[in-house]
């Protein structure tokens, strides 16, 4: 029961990109740990700029 609840919560977080920063940190750790890492705020702002440079929403 608690396990299911946790998985649902994790699913919702990922769907909403609430865990984007954690995912970035994990990727960063795995791929290039020697490079400087972005803070939460800078990462968020960068992501928004990247995301809204292309077609994201339809009619």
């Amino acid at each position: 029961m608690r396990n299911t609840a946790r998985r649902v919560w994790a699913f919702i977080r990922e769907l909403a990109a609430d865990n984007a920063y954690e995912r970035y940190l994990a990727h960063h750790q795995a791929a290039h740990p020697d490079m400087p890492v972005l803070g939460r705020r800078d990462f968020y702002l960068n992501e928004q700029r990247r995301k809204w440079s292309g077609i994201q929403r339809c009619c």
Partner: protein
Amino acid sequence: MLKVIWGLVAIVGAFAVGGLALHRGESINSMWIIVAAGCIYAIGYRFYSAWIAAKVLVADETRVTPAIRLDNGRDFVPTNRWIAFGHHFAAIAGPGPLVGPTLAAQFGYLPGTLWILFGAVLGGCVQDMTVLFLSTRRDGRSLGKMARDEIGAIGGYAAMFGTLMIMIILIAVLGLVVVNAMKHSPWGTSTIFATIPIAVLIGLYMRDIRPGRVLEASLLGVTLLLLAVVGGGLVDKHEVLRQFFDFDGKPLAWFVIIYGFTAAVLPVWLLLAPRDYLSTFLKLGTIALLAVAVVVMSPDLKMPAVTQFTDGSGPIFGGKLFPFVFITIACGAISGFHALVASGTTPKLIMNERDVRMIGYGSMALESAVALMAMIAVTLLDPGVYFAINAPPGVVGATAAAAVETISSWGFPVSAEQMHALAQEMGEATLFARTGGAPSLAVGMASLLSSAFGKSLMALWYHFAIMFEAVFILTTLDAGTRVGRFMVQDFLGHIWKPLGETSWYPSVLLSSALIVAGWGYFLYIGVIDPNGGINILWPLFGISNQVLAAIALSIVTGILVKQGNLRHAWVSALPLAWLAIVTTTASWQKVFSPDVRIGFLSAADQLAEKLAAGSLPAQAADVAPQLIFNQRLDAVLVVVFAVILWIVIADTVRICWRVAKGYPVLPGSEAPATAGAFEARAT
């Protein structure tokens, strides 16, 4: 055993479709539509999409996808297929599938319903799925880039130009829908105004107070939006306050234009991004709510299966059933715009090629279901009420008495008292001639939701529905203006280099102004048009969207043929042929029809004659020159769309012919398969 179950699904589906098609009489229960849809989507998904994946696209689950190969933790991210499905669906589902069916209901519930069902299963879902697959095989390249790589430069530029044009028309028509929903509605207007500071507040929260905490910020924002709906009611009841929010169409159009420009030049984190988070939450929540209400209540549909307006005399838009039902309902059956999201964003999330089926085909089937819900929500209204809300004063007369008389004379009885009582129940001053689709859909949704979740709150539900529609229309408007701005900057960069720099402020201002001027013009003309503007702009939008779909299907067909899969190319060629017939016929009629309610040129000529003869009332004579110019411009635009379409088709046919003759063609641009696929995926 499985075979027996699928056999049963097929039989039940056939029975439900047959029942729908043959039913004539007072009313029909919406359960017929729900069952027919469920069976058709299930069969389409289980058999057709599986067959396309296996035989036509030859999806290979051992092949490494770009999300894995190019994983950068940002846009290329291998994503669980349910999450990717959610993202893709949220991206493709906009206001289109709500508005189109609402307008097409003037033909009765049956034509639109059948087109939504079969158009999606055989056309829209196939387009989305094949484009998604081909783009996944090409590292997530955009539709325009794929066209240039595989077909040639001409097809590529036509696709890009078509995208820009459809964006301008789309934003104009959606802006008009919002303006018409706000017109003389202090409750609606104050609520929609309030969404702007709420979005800014959430933007600041996500940047400075709790950076990147999307969920809690969205939850806070949605709560504030719901409070804004309640607050709008208080404003409406306040004698003085309500006057500040009681506007004519023109100032509201200016508001939308200035808003669109501001949203396009401000940094995205301040307005666009937070608004999008809120609208996505609202969208998914409301769609789920609506689905529960439709299934639980399964209301009776009062609209006839087919109305007399299939002959082309419809009050909401002119034109016969063929081709105009297929133009009016674009999103929900097949939408070219989806090809832009399916190539670009979503392919970079695909973890395994076998997921393409669920994400591409499945999301579109779900969007089609949303369109059906909209169809149910408006056809459960009394047809008289439906027409009274949606028919423009230019057709039914400017006064309530004239309107009810005209509409009742069509065989759809409605009285001024009934409309007045309904307006009061919804907390609006009037519901006559509230064109654009949003108000009638909101009335339908309010009746549905209030009967399922609390009857006393009718006015709240109505304005909740209006706010819901407005929030994601404005999101589309922001996002579309911004994308249009990038396209213009890209283009201007070829003329003078600094103009192409996306962060150079003079260029940002200039290109944003160009885009906003483009759609703002059509929006403004739509607002001053006594026929409501929707009857001109929506068909224009439908044609442009279907042309884009046809371009996407052309590219898919060309690639399939190049890959030696001529035998299966009908999968995309058949819907392409249908769209080519539909859009070409519609374009021809929109330009050349002698019927002034259909043909742009004849309408312009007639108005010019009246103006010259001095037979127009003073107010109409003032705007006549603009309307005449606009109708001629619209005619040119439609011709441009048709020419673009046929250029792309001709280019594709040329490629197919060269392949058949064994002449050289551009090399395929598929990224090579990498070895060790399975191991890479497992980690």
